[in-house]
């Protein structure tokens, strides 16, 4: 629906954009991101987030707006951008006038310098106003320029900014995989070399134009391939994917592999919670409990320290025990909540999670669980006498766990039990009236979810070699819940995407770590408002047509 906007509405949009960027500034987000320079000497990630809000508001407003001729949207874009700069200008003058830091500790001199480009307040303000205005015009122009230029432009921008954002990590990878010579060409310091950035931008731009023109015929060719050839191609793709997964630690190097392992731990938990929340629709906020139980059982059984049972179990014997104990707890804690629905269930499970944590922290079982000090000296897993110490070695333990969980989750999803879970999620009463036993269906979901989480916890304990009760807090449950919601509730590939975005990215962009939960909060709200089905929604399997196709094939 196209709308017309009055000047007042446009100014309000600008003020709203300004309020957003002002908030980002005063909480210290922008100043922190300014430490990550993207293109040497040009701009930082802080600048990107500084202009993101006026850009977005100007873009969306001009997109929805009814207009004739091109002057109107460009003008609107400029007004929104310029108005958005006003709150920041006020802030920078305030900072000169009074000691604002006694109230807002994050309004640092560095932030003010960023906002005024190191100039005097007056000159700086004019520059900021102009910059924001230009950004507004730039954003508005995206709605005007023809598609065949817009698409390459967006592609080139996204790719250039993308590699610039991760230049620190790319730099170390390029150095160890491709040699120092190339590093000097691409990077300058820890950020992107301006000349390379321009070349890269132009290259992506050019390639996209070429692809837009020629790509269709290429795709057509691909589609017209003989079925046998196409099958070969997709097999080839699968083999390639398998090889990449298998040799990932070599490509990633030890730091990134460690990140991948953490992502894997969360994927495991996510796959479990996805069964409980995604398949069966039972909102569990105490999911961390089973992770903690898995970790503690592993710790107690294998620890070589003074605590624990001194049982001296090996990782591989303790692993199934951890999973079984976590599963049993899943059932035991599931029984009291069988009759509960929706939000009450969520709060009670949250209570369970907290009870488990508080008990672990307390002195109640201090002799075995170590109280607040936790359990130390947990041995790393061994594999035929080799201790798996390096991230690159532990990777395979995590990978095996994830593959097992994906396998089981997929098979269960496509079975009668999976359909029972989904029916339960859609309408509990009708599901019961279809003849299914709600008690066993729910307990199966809790048990499977707990098992995956326990497995994850056990691997986690062994990987870290120590566990502390304080780390098993509600935030982990929220973390896992966020990742399955962002990925797509009930979608198994979605768990991977969610974990990569919510666990992987913050580890690569350390600046984000401090604001991680703030970002999770925003993501949860935005996802629910805009895209409740998630980034990679669950695709229901085609059954009717598929089987008809099979019949056709059989008849031939």
């Amino acid at each position, binding site marked *: 629906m196209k709308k017309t906007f009055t000047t007042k509405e446009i100014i309000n949009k600008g003020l709203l954009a300004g309020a957003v960027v002002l908030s980002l500034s*005063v*909480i210290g987000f922008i100043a922190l991101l300014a430490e990550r320079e993207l293109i040497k000497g040009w701009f930082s990630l802080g600048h990107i987030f500084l202009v993101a809000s006026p850009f977005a508001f100007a873009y969306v407003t001009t997109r929805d707006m009814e207009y004739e001729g091109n002057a109107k949207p460009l003008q609107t874009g400029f007004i929104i951008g310029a108005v958005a700069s006003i709150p920041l200008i006020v802030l920078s003058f305030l900072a000169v006038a009074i000691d604002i830091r006694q109230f807002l500790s*994050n309004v640092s001199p560095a932030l003010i310098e960023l906002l005024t480009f190191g100039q005097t307040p007056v000159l700086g303000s004019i520059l900021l106003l102009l910059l924001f205005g230009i950004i507004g015009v730039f954003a508005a122009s995206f709605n005007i320029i023809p598609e065949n230029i817009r698409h390459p432009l967006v592609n080139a921008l996204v790719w250039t900014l993308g590699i610039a954002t991760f230049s620190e990590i790319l730099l170390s990878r390029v150095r160890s995989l491709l040699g120092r010579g190339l590093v000097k060409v691409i990077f300058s310091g820890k950020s992107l070399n301006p000349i390379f950035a321009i070349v890269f931008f132009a290259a992506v731009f050019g390639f996209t134009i070429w692809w837009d023109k020629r790509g269709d015929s290429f795709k057509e060719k691909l589609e017209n391939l003989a079925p046998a050839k196409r099958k070969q191609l997709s097999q080839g793709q699968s083999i390639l994917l398998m090889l990449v997964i298998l040799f990932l630690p070599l490509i990633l190097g030890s730091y990134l592999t460690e990140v991948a392992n953490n992502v894997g731990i969360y994927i495991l938990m996510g796959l479990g919670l996805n069964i409980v929340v995604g398949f069966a629709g039972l909102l569990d906020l105490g999911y961390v409990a089973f992770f903690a139980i898995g970790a503690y059982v592993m710790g107690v059984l294998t620890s070589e320290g003074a605590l624990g049972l001194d049982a001296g179990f090996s990782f591989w014997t303790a692993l199934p025990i951890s999973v079984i104990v976590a599963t049993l707890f899943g059932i035991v804690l599931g*029984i009291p909540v069988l009759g*509960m629905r929706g939000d009450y269930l969520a709060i009670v499970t949250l209570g369970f999670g907290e*009870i488990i944590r508080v*008990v672990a922290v307390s002195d*109640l079982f201090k002799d075995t669980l170590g109280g607040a000090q936790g359990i130390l000296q947990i041995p790393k897993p061994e594999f035929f006498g080799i201790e798996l110490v390096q991230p690159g070695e532990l990777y395979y333990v995590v990978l095996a766990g994830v593959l097992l969980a994906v396998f089981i989750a997929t098979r269960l999803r496509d079975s009668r039990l999976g359909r029972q879970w989904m029916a339960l999620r859609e309408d509990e009463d009708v599901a019961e009236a279809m003849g299914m036993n709600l008690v066993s269906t729910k307990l199966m979901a809790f048990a499977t979810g707990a098992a995956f989480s326990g497995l994850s916890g056990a691997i986690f304990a062994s990987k870290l070699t120590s566990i502390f009760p304080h780390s098993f807090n509600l935030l982990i449950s929220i973390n896992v819940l966020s990742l399955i919601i962002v990925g797509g509730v009930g979608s198994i590939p979605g768990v991977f995407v969610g974990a990569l975005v919510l666990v992987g990215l913050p580890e690569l962009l350390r600046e984000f770590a401090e604001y991680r*939960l703030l970002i999770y909060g925003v993501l949860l709200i935005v996802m629910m408002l805009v895209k409740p089905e998630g980034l990679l929604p669950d695709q229901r399997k085609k059954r009717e047509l598929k089987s008809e196709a099979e019949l056709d094939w059989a008849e031939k």
Partner: protein
Amino acid sequence: MQERIKQIDFLGLILWVFRTAIIVAMLWGTIATVMDNPYSAKAWTDTIVAGIAQGSLYALIAIGYTLVYGVLFMINFAHGEFFMSGIMTATIFIAQPMSASGYLDRHPIIGLLIIAVVTMLVSIGIAILTERVAYRPLRGAPRLVPLITAIGASFFWQYFFQGLYGSEVKPFPQTDILTGKINIGGVEILKTQVIVIIVTVLMLIGLYFFVVKTKTGKSIRAAAENKDVARLMGIDVDRAITLTFTMGAAMAGIAGVLYALVFRQIHFFMGFFPGIKAFTAAVLGGIGSIPGAALGGLFLGIFESVGPGLFLEGLGVPSPHQLKDVIAFTMLVLVLIFRPQGILGEALAEEKA
């Protein structure tokens, strides 16, 4: 619901055993403690008074949960953040500068009133903003959707205020007139605790009359009863909902000031656990009922305060006060399993088909 449980015999048995075990453990612990008598009468009185004061705070916060649940049937997970945001802002911008300039010492009552008003206004502002941006567009969505949004809002506000004011614990300035104890009927009670209890009682009475007697209050109750019918009767339901959030946030704001007076320090995470506890209190008293929230809060506060010494000490649990939260959460679980309608609540008619 009750009928269901009768049918699920095996499970019913397990639940019964579970409940009995907890009751027996409580009784056992109590008897053992009483026999052992480790604390003096004065210590018990102090614990109970502290419990009442704590319970008053829970009651004030619980009002917000109960009102919102009554109207929207959603657990406003972010309510604890309304409680935190007001007093955080007022402390940084009003209380600390006032204390530094000596104004608070010269005019303590006016100073505290200003702090209270600012706190309430900020809490209300945050509540209205949250409702407008995060909840209103989701009216009529499946029930879990607003709950997830509310969790998101809770974390957003926590870490927004952490970014705004820093993560360190902030002192709340003290005033001379509120330090020390006074003697009431031979019992020495902290002045702050007296203030907490008096203010809570006044606020609750005021709120009750507002909701029951005034026209605005009636519009809220009508919206709670049936939104569609209320709309047909010419009631602006959106406005009634905003008002509900406003009242809940105002109560939470006052609770924030009282919290700061009692504990003398505040931080960005302070809203989270009191929030969950207050929700427990609301459920305990019967969610949707204002007297229920008050009673539930009081009950939970006393239980939590007395419980560790009374039940757990006798059972030989080491450092029982660490397990205070376990008592609160166990209460929550027990209430939701065995009496989900709470102490004062009416049974929510469960429409099956």
